[in-house]
């Protein structure tokens, strides 16, 4: 029982990270139908910005978090403007290959400047280094921090999407881009804003992973990126609460598989879930089945 609880605690921490990344995937896919493969590398860049701020500049955790969210926002918007915007009317596969190209570019440029070596975040001090025991279940302060920051960001995101004008524009563009433009919505700036939001969340996920796992490298984004995409599909792609749910579920399932001694198969299980969900319920857990128009 205690082991079960412990796994759930660990799973929620991992799931929070997946959920934050999955939100970016799901929003971008919802609005321009592109699997943004570069998204996982924005997360990696976020981790590196956090590393520079905390280890080299000696900033605290919260200023570093803001810095890495800001840098990732700018990067996300720049990528959208330079690489994806010229391809708005090209085939989906051309846009996808471009996204893969941007992803490789970010990975290997980082590798060129920061070398392929694993970097370690400075050790945490004060409150951040504490652990709490409840019975035999150990919860570290970092896990609490991850959970709280993720929830705050998700609430903020929901407020932006549901309550503000730009959020309304986002929903309108993802529903029908042409009709939204006819209503006077600037689709280009709305798309840029979507990239900005998604990238900021990825940046936050990056620095949280740095603090939690303590080591980062230029290719760290690839596998979590794929799994976060699986999470987005699991919950129903294009649906924001779906991405959150999918992220947490994938995180918890993965820790359970690892916790019961099959850690070598944890990635395989995640992809098997993906294939199953695609076959049984392609619209995802929260998605609605839509009929096909001829």
């Amino acid at each position, binding site marked *: 029982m205690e082991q079960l609880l412990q796994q759930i605690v660990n799973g929620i921490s991992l799931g929070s990270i997946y959920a934050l990344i999955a939100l970016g995937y799901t929003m971008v*896919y919802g609005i321009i*139908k592109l*699997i943004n493969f570069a998204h996982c590398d924005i997360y990696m860049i976020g981790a590196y910005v956090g590393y520079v701020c905390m280890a080299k500049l000696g900033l605290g955790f919260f200023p570093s978090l803001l810095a890495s969210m800001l840098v990732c926002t700018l990067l996300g918007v720049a990528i959208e403007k330079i*690489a994806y915007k*010229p*391809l708005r009317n*090209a*085939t*989906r*596969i*051309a*846009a*996808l*290959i*471009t996204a*893969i*190209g*941007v*992803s*490789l*570019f970010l*990975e*290997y*440029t980082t*590798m*060129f400047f920061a070398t392929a070596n694993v970097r370690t975040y400075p050790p945490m001090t004060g409150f951040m280094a504490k652990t709490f025991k409840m019975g035999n279940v150990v919860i570290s302060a970092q896990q609490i921090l991850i959970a709280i920051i993720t929830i705050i960001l998700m609430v903020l995101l929901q407020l932006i999407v549901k309550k503000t004008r730009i959020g309304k524009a986002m929903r309108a563009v993802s529903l029908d881009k042409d009709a939204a433009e006819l209503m006077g919505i600037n689709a280009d700036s709305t798309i840029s804003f979507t990239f900005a939001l998604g990238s900021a969340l990825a940046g936050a996920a990056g620095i949280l992973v740095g603090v939690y796992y303590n080591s980062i490298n230029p290719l760290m984004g*690839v596998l979590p990126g*794929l799994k976060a*995409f*699986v999470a987005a*599909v699991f919950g129903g792609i294009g649906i924001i609460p779906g991405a959150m749910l999918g992220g947490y579920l994938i995180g918890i399932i993965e820790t359970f598989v690892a916790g019961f001694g099959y850690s*070598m*198969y944890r*990635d*395989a299980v995640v*992809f*098997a879930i*993906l*294939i199953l969900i*695609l*076959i049984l319920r*392609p619209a995802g857990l929260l998605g609605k089945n839509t009929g*096909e128009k*001829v």
Partner: protein
Amino acid sequence: MKGTLSAQLIRKLILVVLAYAIVQLLISVNIINDYLQATLTTICINIILAVSLNLITGFTGQFSLGHAGFMSIGAYTCALIILKNPTTYNFLLGTLLGALLAALVGFLVGLPTLRLRGDYLAIATLGMAEIIKIMFINMDKITNGPRGLSGIPRFVNWTWLFIFTVGTVLLIRNFLKSSHGRACIAIREDEIAAETMGINITWYKVLAFVIGAFCAGIAGALYASYFYFIKPDIFGFLKSVDILVMVVLGGMGSISGSILAAILLAVISTLLQSFSEIRMILYALILIIIMIFRPQGLLGSREISLSAFNRLGKFFAFEKEAK
């Protein structure tokens, strides 16, 4: 009519044999040394992979990101067989078995997943390739896990490469010229319209997928038996992307385009070998730039054929006369 057709066939046959003979000659006088021969092998394997993926993605319109998975099945099957019993006969048997096994997995995976559309299929095939990779990593006793198999005897030479490459290209070209191929192209153009015309879309999608997987298995077997060494990481996501890039770069739905792109990319990667640090950065940049400025690929869906050369010849002849 029939006479001209067979004359064309003979001309093509002569050209193919000539290409084989010239390279064989260059190898025997050592102008194509070991280093160039490795590039040549990469080119041939790339051609097989690109043309077979083009059948799935370019002609049938089914977006697959898991081609490297099929390749790894062929590679491991062939490697395990010739490691046990290194004879040419077993190499051929291994290649055949590897290809058949890849085709079988393609069938099993394709049947349920090919109902999915576009990006979903891409992600499902990607997941499948990752699962295959993880299986190879975990079957420690047979595949030596993540360390891979080394010391695989080399049976691949230019003759085998040539036979398999030309064979694959011919197989897929003839398939596409048949009514089955036209059905596949119809599915790409409009699935619903094709279904209305009485084409069994599931059958043809799976057929294209299985043939593609079969050829990828052959390519994997050739790879294993030429480069001595295989490990699961070689056949990861990046390899699948590499193959897809060849298809898109050459032009979706153009066999000659895939061949051209396979040659081009192998040459580029050989040339960039000396800048190993920025090799991948340049590769990524080239990819982005080509996609932004020529998203339909180098050849689009056109083909280069002998008649194109004839026309070119006539054009130059005409110029001379005009002078």
